[in-house]
């Protein structure tokens, strides 16, 4: 064609070319190998080197995995079994430790007769999360609630839950399943009451404490609702927070005690220092994640605000918390906070740690979300304004859905970081799964000297949870992708 074209100025194509398949070397597995593994001499060398390294790693560690021992009562016995089966000098993993001590990794020193309570709370956690994670998707909701039901039937039976609790829990989840079919949106009500329910299940005590504490939010809402027509939205919200704080500080206990005296209903109380292992990590992690996101959003908006005081406070908070190591904050939680509180207040250590971990994550999230806000074109704000949407509606309907969507990968990274950072509570004497529990296990004369196994076990559980979060975030990104770029 080019020849003809070059020689004559006028050129008309009289027949169109049919599409042809690409050459053999340019398609299928051959193309993939050539492009990805053997594209140049350097890449060929690197490929060979990579294969050798993988081979070396596998051949060095495989026997250790293959000689695993699951049944033994001490590390010494493990070694004898390995020596007997694989010959003198062979190495083998001793998973018998996990088999014997798994409950400490999961529950810490939580009393065994009450194990059904964290087990139940863990199952209900998924029932509470489902309406948030899969809003209105009947099929996914049904799947998850069905899974929770099956999980509870098995685990509650194994944990030896009392008959009444067993029946009530199954009834509750079955009820949620029905609601999921009829009105999936209503499931969010369960999500709202779940924190109080979970708190009561884990720490026990009078049922009236969580109910009266939740009523504090009712007070907040009532003050906001009835105040806002007279004094405006923001002052009403402020007044609501003050009223709720007063409720919690001065009224809460008195009412809870009276109610408990009048209508006693309580389960065995469990002290915070008995919590440990993944029970502790998940309590701190999930609470931190759930509360840090809204706080982070408010801080990010506050940082962009035109109101000087709001802006200064937000910037100060974010920069201070981000500028200080988490461990410093944890020490503050465990030691210093007591000095600032009125004498005699017994402010639970786990609660203190949760508050500071939440603040820490919120400060990071605020910056992540600010990045998302900054990435939105100005036109989005202008279009929202031009349509007459007020600030909060514009934020809720236009700005935040887009800004949060942009920030999903970083938000989830922060969440994963937060969850893994819960192991740092070991430094303030709490029994985290990695250091706290492992130390206790190794202090036992039977398991003295065990090294890899507890870390691999704990690491694997962390990995499963964090990988799950990561996959969910990818699913969410795909689902929300509407820009078709």
């Amino acid at each position, binding site marked *: 064609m080019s020849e003809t074209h070059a020689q004559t100025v006028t050129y008309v194509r009289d027949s169109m070319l049919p599409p042809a398949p690409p050459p053999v070397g340019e398609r299928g597995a051959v193309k993939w190998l050539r492009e990805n593994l053997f594209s140049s001499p350097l890449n060929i060398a690197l490929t060979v080197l990579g294969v050798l390294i993988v081979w070396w790693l596998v051949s060095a560690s495989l026997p250790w995995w293959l000689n695993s021992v699951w049944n033994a009562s001490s590390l010494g016995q493990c070694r004898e079994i390995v020596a007997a089966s694989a010959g003198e000098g062979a190495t083998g993993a001793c998973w018998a430790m996990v088999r014997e001590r798994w409950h400490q990794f999961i529950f810490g020193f939580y009393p065994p007769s009450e194990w059904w309570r964290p087990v139940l709370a863990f199952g209900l956690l998924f029932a509470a999360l489902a309406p948030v994670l899969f809003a209105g998707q009947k099929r996914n909701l049904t799947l998850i609630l069905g899974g929770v039901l099956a999980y509870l039937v098995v685990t509650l039976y194994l944990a030896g839950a009392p008959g009444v609790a067993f029946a009530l829990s199954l009834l509750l989840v079955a009820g949620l399943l029905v609601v999921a079919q009829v009105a999936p949106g209503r499931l969010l009500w369960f999500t709202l009451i779940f924190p109080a329910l979970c708190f009561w299940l884990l720490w026990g005590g009078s049922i009236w404490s969580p109910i009266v504490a939740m009523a504090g939010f009712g007070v907040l809402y009532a003050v906001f609702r009835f105040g806002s027509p007279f004094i405006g939205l923001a002052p009403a919200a402020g007044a609501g927070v003050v009223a709720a704080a007063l409720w919690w500080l001065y009224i809460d206990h008195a009412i809870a005690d009276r109610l408990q005296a009048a209508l006693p209903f309580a389960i065995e109380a469990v002290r915070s220092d008995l919590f440990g292992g993944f029970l502790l990590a998940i309590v701190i992690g999930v609470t931190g994640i759930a509360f840090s996101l809204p706080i982070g959003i408010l801080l990010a908006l506050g940082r962009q605000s035109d109101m000087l005081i709001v802006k200064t406070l937000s910037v100060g908070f974010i920069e201070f918390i981000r500028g200080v190591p988490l461990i410093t904050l944890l020490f503050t939680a465990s030691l210093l906070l007591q000095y600032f509180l009125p004498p005699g207040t017994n402010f639970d250590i786990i609660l203190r740690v949760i508050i500071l971990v939440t603040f820490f994550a919120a400060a990071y999230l605020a910056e992540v979300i600010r990045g998302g806000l900054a990435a939105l074109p100005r036109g989005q704000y202008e*279009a929202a304004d031009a*349509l*007459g*949407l007020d600030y909060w509606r514009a934020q809720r309907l236009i700005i935040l859905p887009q800004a949060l969507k942009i920030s999903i990968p970083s938000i989830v990274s922060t969440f994963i970081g937060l969850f893994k950072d819960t192991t740092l509570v070991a430094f303030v004497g709490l029994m985290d799964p990695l250091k706290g529990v492992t130390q206790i296990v190794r202090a036992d004369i039977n398991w003295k000297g065990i090294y890899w196994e507890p870390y691999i076990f704990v690491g694997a559980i962390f990995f499963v949870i964090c990988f799950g979060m990561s996959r969910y975030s990818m699913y969410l990104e795909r689902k929300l992708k*509407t820009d*078709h770029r």
Partner: protein
Amino acid sequence: MAEASKMQISDEVAIQITGMNKWYGQFHVLRDINMTVQRGERIVICGPSGSGKSTLIRCINRLEEHQQGQIIVDGTELTNDLKNIDKVRSEVGMVFQHFNLFPHLTILENCTLAPIWVRKVPKKEAEETAMHFLRKVKIPEQANKYPGQLSGGQQQRVAIARSLCMKPRIMLFDEPTSALDPEMIKEVLDTMIQLAEEGMTMLCVTHEMGFAQAVANRVIFMDQGQIVEQNEPKEFFSNPKSDRTKLFLSQILGH
């Protein structure tokens, strides 16, 4: 056509701007603007870039603040009072150069969002209204797509429909065709002409002189933040008075 639509202009004042000045920092961007817009008028504002024409119409719904003078829209004066601003904004529709559709919402949701949340219209009714206006801009079949799936011209027509769903009494157009490919300009202009024929009060910043000649009953020429000349389109194009206008017209009509 121009003769017929002139009949719809009433004596009622839609927008009254008196002695308005605006600065960006030290830069005096709008200088002593005085203008009155009657209900039903269709005004085209033109001028070289940086002459303040976009800033002027953005002041009318307070996307930009003015520092001096008075702007009264539909009997409501624009001050720092947020209630007044929201009131004016819900009565004044605005179409942007870059459409500014909400990419996370479908076309239909883009159109129903403001009526539902600002006007408190029931969802079903808002959707019916939205479909009515989407039919009017000739893209009802795209209602369930996302903005990213539409061409520029289609997106701009959706933006017009989105504004119309608020049933505005005044429409502002900020260079609605400048970001479009040439072949898409016509479909947007056709929509705007149709709107003009129905008697909508329109202020339009544009370089489409054909549009100005076809539908405007007044052309305002701005330069260096001031109104330099205004006249009926016929007179404005055939017999410009100021040298600045002559130069501008020769530059944009020259080829």
